[in-house]
């Protein structure tokens, strides 16, 4: 029972209180770039959840089974970004072979994920916060879900904004930023929660 409670606390923290996009400012490029349509937002969200979980798992193992025993922690940045780049490539190939239907919906988003800072961000955060192996995996999973949540919310709002009467100069990116600001303000309300 206690375990369930701890997992729940971790989930609430990663999804709401320390949301990757709105409070940590990670993964803003896809958040603004891929949130014009609901379909693509869902596709991108799924791809990010998958890659963030995988990346958290593998980079944790690299840090504690490879870099630490060899005392080469200073190579962390290089090692992690290469791992993520090859992981994304691998995932792309595996999905293409085994699940063509899934590849069709996720395919275009996968290459973009390498430069999504949420993925490298969660890998480094897991190490900095000295999470355990399972803590790291769950942090990746819930962090990705939090990202997906705000991405889908944003896409829903922006589909409606298409029809709204917005001043010429504010159309597109500027209004998206203001909307993001309002969403961040709403999410700020979660920051008082301590679990």
């Amino acid at each position, binding site marked *: 029972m206690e375990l369930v409670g701890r997992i729940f606390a971790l989930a609430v923290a990663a999804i709401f209180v320390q949301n990757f996009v709105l409070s940590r*400012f990670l993964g803003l490029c896809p958040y603004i770039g891929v949130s014009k349509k609901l379909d693509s937002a869902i596709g991108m969200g799924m791809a990010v959840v998958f890659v963030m979980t995988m990346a958290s798992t593998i980079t944790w193992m690299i840090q504690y089974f490879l870099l630490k025993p060899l005392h080469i922690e200073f190579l962390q940045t290089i090692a992690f970004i290469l791992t993520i780049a090859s992981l994304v490539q691998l995932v792309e190939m595996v999905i293409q072979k085994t699940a063509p239907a899934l590849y069709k919906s996720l395919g275009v988003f996968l290459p973009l994920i390498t430069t999504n800072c949420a993925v490298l961000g969660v890998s480094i955060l897991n190490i900095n916060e000295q999470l355990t192996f399972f803590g790291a995996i769950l942090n990746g999973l819930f962090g990705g879900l939090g990202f997906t949540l705000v991405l889908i919310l944003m896409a829903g709002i922006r589909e409606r904004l298409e029809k709204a009467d917005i001043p010429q100069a504010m159309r597109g990116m500027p209004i998206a930023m203001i909307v993001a600001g309002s969403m961040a303000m709403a999410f700020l309300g979660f920051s008082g929660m301590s679990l």
Partner: protein
Amino acid sequence: MALKEFTKGFVKENPVFVMALGLCPTLAVTSSVNNAVGMGLAATFVLMCSNLLVSLVKDVIPSKIRIPSFIVIIASFVTIVDLSMSAFLPALHKSLGLFIPLIVVNCIILGRAEAFASKNNPLNSVLDGLGMGLGFTMALMIIASIREILGAGQFFGMQVLPTSYRPMLVAILAPGAFIVMGLLMGLMNIAKNKKK
């Protein structure tokens, strides 16, 4: 000619306001001008060095593996910045935190390596990197100045507004970053439309 490569990053092709690249660090570190300058200069250093190296090795690297090679080059310089900053400027290193290693995935740097340095000579590439880096720094400073003055009544940590001013705390919190950025982008659009 060379001068043009240097100055285009300031206004015409400003990486933040015009091209909307590298948003994550832009919004994350601009809660104080001090952090903004630190981040801007760190990114400028990485941009210059990686542009130089990329343009030197561009003919040796097969085009199929050029992106991974660029990433390794960039990651090496980021590691240099990370380690030197933690040795010489520990306070700044601590407040920038996660965003130092994340310079690796800053789209401005990979973007310039791919779009400019891999096609131009070393001198122009360094100038391009320096110009873009300073343009980035400038943009960060503008956003940070607005946020720090409104949110804390301070500039570079010095009190500039009278102490009777009640700081708008929201400006230095996360929502303020998005809203200030959105309004600045709107202003840029108005300026652009007037020119036409």
